[in-house]
């Protein structure tokens, strides 16, 4: 009887061991499964956040691109309007006067006629240039060097600045969107120099490196405190420039010394 009870107790103990082992094993599986599901959820959330961030960056880029295109278009229109008013309009008025002289003179005044012809030819050439400027694919065929050279000559004509433009290395394409945004960055830097720097000379370098395009804009103006300008609301222009540079994968560095001038370096990778 005692023997039988002992066997039964041993059996019960064995069953308890199996019970505990089974429960432990099941709990272990449960833990592993729960861990995997939680990990999946975290991973999913990360991917979702990443996707949203990418989408946001894409939207920002498109917005900036559109803004740059509009700004350049607006500039082109005002340039054309100026050209028509100051150039073609003036020359054509002169031609009218010359034709009036010819109308009222008894003899053929050849020098006046030749002048009138030359003026008309100039007007035709100017109008062709303007028509080129109005072409819709001008923005998509945007050439950085040509436009920078144009910008420099515009500055030389319209300001007292002594501007020097230098392009080094073999030109490499950046892509129309990147080029447009970069051009707007440079334009904004130049505008800042005209408005605030009180500089006499301006040096613009465009260097095509191995892996990136390097732009240097240097002036001999009064300079400014970079950290102070970034911190203040006036610095919004700087942060805007910096954001635009980041948007095309570029870097913007500003060095400025009071009463000595400012150097702006822009690095934009080709890829």
């Amino acid at each position: 009887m005692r023997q039988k009870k002992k066997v039964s107790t041993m059996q019960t103990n064995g069953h308890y061991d199996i019970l505990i082992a089974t429960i432990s094993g099941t709990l272990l599986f449960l833990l592993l499964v729960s861990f995997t599901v939680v990990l999946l959820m975290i991973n999913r959330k990360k991917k979702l956040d990443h996707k949203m961030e990418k989408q946001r960056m894409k939207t920002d880029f498109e917005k900036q691109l559109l803004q740059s295109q509009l700004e350049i278009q607006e500039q082109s229109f005002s340039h054309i309007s100026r050209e028509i008013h100051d150039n073609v309009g003036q020359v054509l008025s002169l031609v009218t006067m010359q034709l009036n002289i010819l109308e009222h003179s008894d003899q053929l005044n050849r020098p006046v006629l030749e002048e009138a012809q030359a003026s008309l030819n100039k007007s035709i050439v100017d109008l062709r240039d303007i028509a080129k400027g109005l072409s819709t694919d001008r923005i998509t065929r945007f050439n950085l060097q040509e436009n920078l050279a144009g910008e420099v000559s515009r500055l030389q004509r319209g300001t007292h600045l002594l501007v020097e433009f230098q392009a080094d290395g073999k030109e490499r394409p950046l892509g129309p969107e990147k080029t447009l945004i970069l051009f707007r960055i440079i334009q904004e830097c130049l505008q800042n120099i005209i408005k605030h720097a009180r500089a006499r000379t301006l040096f613009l370098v465009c260097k095509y490196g191995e892996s990136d395009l390097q732009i240097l804009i240097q002036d001999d103006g009064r300079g400014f405190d970079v950290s102070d300008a970034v911190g203040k609301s006036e610095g919004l222009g700087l942060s805007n420039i910096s954001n635009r540079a980041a948007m095309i994968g570029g870097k913007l560095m500003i060095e400025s010394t009071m009463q000595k001038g400012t150097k702006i370096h822009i690095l934009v990778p080709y890829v």
Partner: protein
Amino acid sequence: MHPDIRGIINDISIYSILLPLLLGFIFLKKLSRDSLIVWGIVTLGSIPELLGQFTTDTLTRNIAYNLYTPFEFAMLWVLYRDKFRSRLNRRIFRTTVRIYIGLSLLIVWYFGMAARFINEWVCVNNIIYTAWTLMVLAEEFSSEEGMRLNFQLPFFWYITAYFFYAPCTLLLYSLWHFIKQNPDSPLDNIWIIHNVFNTCLYVFFTVGFVKDVLGRKLRDEAKKESLDHANEWTL
């Protein structure tokens, strides 16, 4: 554990199948393909599940359970069939099906369909379901998009249901006959594990059906709204 509590948990586990069964039946026409497959599993699963309550005939019960095992596998094969993106996983999937068919023939030849409940067969099923689920999850981790599984998709609830049920009841199914032979031992408490996971399985299926029906309702509303909008423009 107190026998009454054990009995309640057992009853909850058995009758919890009625939840997805009835809900699926009510919204049968609105269910997606995945949900219809799961509803098919639930419907056929309810036969052995409820049969156990109303008959003591071992032979009938054994046949019902043993027929359900390959049927469930076949239905899950249809459910998982188009869910793998990578070629390797699709190849593994096909290989597991071939191995399963071979093993099943061997099992049926060796044990027969009526002699006893073939717990080994269920264990094989559970291992394969776990492997398939892990393969789907691994694809989710490695995929760039990684957006296929989310709380709103019924498929997420179905694979999560099996992902919890299959590995967590594996040990229990492997000890099935040993536990049955010792009904008065402490081992009898082990059924609670099965009952809890069984209830979870059917609750997850129910959530999947609800998500499916609600999702379809939202999609229909959006579709109607866009059609109305288009009509306004046409008018």
